[in-house]
């Protein structure tokens, strides 16, 4: 990614690079955090469908956990999981 500083303002507030949202780690917003239980997970992908921030990590076609960099702790995944494989835990930090 090219270097860009806000101090050099572009016309129309244009940012001369793409994908800058990635730099903004919204995980810091959490007051609770989801905990994913690999054994209980039935790989139904409902959490992946419902997560408003694309924070369900997937590899090789399987859910493998939570992306805590961007998960805002809204709890929708825990609410929707039919297998109780995701539970909300206190505090923003997963390893707190």
């Amino acid at each position: 990614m090219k270097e860009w500083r806000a101090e050099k303002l572009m016309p129309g507030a244009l940012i001369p690079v793409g994908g800058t949202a990635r730099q903004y780690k919204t995980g810091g917003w959490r007051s609770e955090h989801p905990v994913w239980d690999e054994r209980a997970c039935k790989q139904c992908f409902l959490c992946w469908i419902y997560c408003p921030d694309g924070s369900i990590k997937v590899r090789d076609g399987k859910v493998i956990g939570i992306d805590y960099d961007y998960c805002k702790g809204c709890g929708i995944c825990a609410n929707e999981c039919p297998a109780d494989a995701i539970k909300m835990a206190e505090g923003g930090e997963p390893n707190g």
Partner: protein
Amino acid sequence: MAKLTEKIVAITGNAAVAQAMRQINPDVVAAYPITPQTDIAETFAEFVADGLVDTEYVTVESEHSAMSACVGASAAGARVMTATSSQGLALMWEILYIAAGMRLPITMTNVNRCLSAPINIHCDHSDSMGARDSGWIQIYSENAQEAYDNVIQAIRIAEHKSVLLPVMVNMDGFIVSHSIERVELLDDEVVKRFVGEYKPVYPLLDVENPVTHGPFDGLGGFYFEHKKAQIEAIERSRKVVLDVADEFKRISGREYGCFEPYRLDDAEVALVVLNSAAGTSKCVVDAMREEGYPVGILKLRVFRPFLARELSEALKHLKAVAILERATSPGSFGPLYAEIRSALYDLEARPKMVNLIYGLGGREFRPEHAKEAFGVCLKVAQTKRVEKPLGYLGLKEVEVIS
């Protein structure tokens, strides 16, 4: 529809604008039909269907969508045009500010029509006047010829590297949009060369050089500075409007400034007018001059940016000025009146001024109304007193239960 080859034609204002759009051949047009603009959207759609232009014509479900599609297409890197009127402009109002704030050089014809309620489809200027803070450059047209010429010039103004702002070209609904007038069309090739090829500065579709358009810029950011930059851009357009007019004169022989004085130099009283009322008023000036009255006109062509200093210079020698307005700001004076008074505020000797509202909802503006307005001015000049700063021309006498 056959391609027009005649240089001098008899067409409506709407047809003249559609011809300009055909000659400009924009990449994208997103528009929604609304009386009295419908002809433009319809005629241009025929040009698209007939293969006379390469334009992608986006048929949208509302004007809010029309302007949103224009914003998206312009950010993508396209040369974008549209047209609207009245409630259409009102519905796209939110997006007007976004187009200007994102510095997108969209060109739009607005066929001036009043705003509901009551529902009425006829001419006044409340629609464009209500958008005067939106950051758009606003140009007004007396007749079909000027509408055609202004649309072509608007492309160059909007896209000028030092400007990059949307431009709204206004003409009077029905009075100009639907009346057939003599219009001199430029050759297609001449217009093509005049507007040139559009080279967007930061197109979204340039995937080799990704950019982000329309980001969030919150409390710790630079919103204020971006607005300041936008204000500087519209300030720079003052020069660009005149430069483009000079160049346009070379291809057309027709002269444009930011405003047009008519027998103003040696006048003692004058009217300030926009759009078609200027034509009617000029006839009255000529007739009254014959009778020895020192009357003149200042027709404003460019309302945004507002030429405060130049207008002050042009009007300062007058004894009385009537600001004629086809719009109101209920609870205050008309929009034009306040700004022109503000422009002349610092003069030691200031012309007396009156604000005369006319033609709301399409009420006709006739020579006798211009004459009445001059009569008011002449009386003010003579008595050096303004009896009624706010007056109305052509109101019917009816009993109103309010």
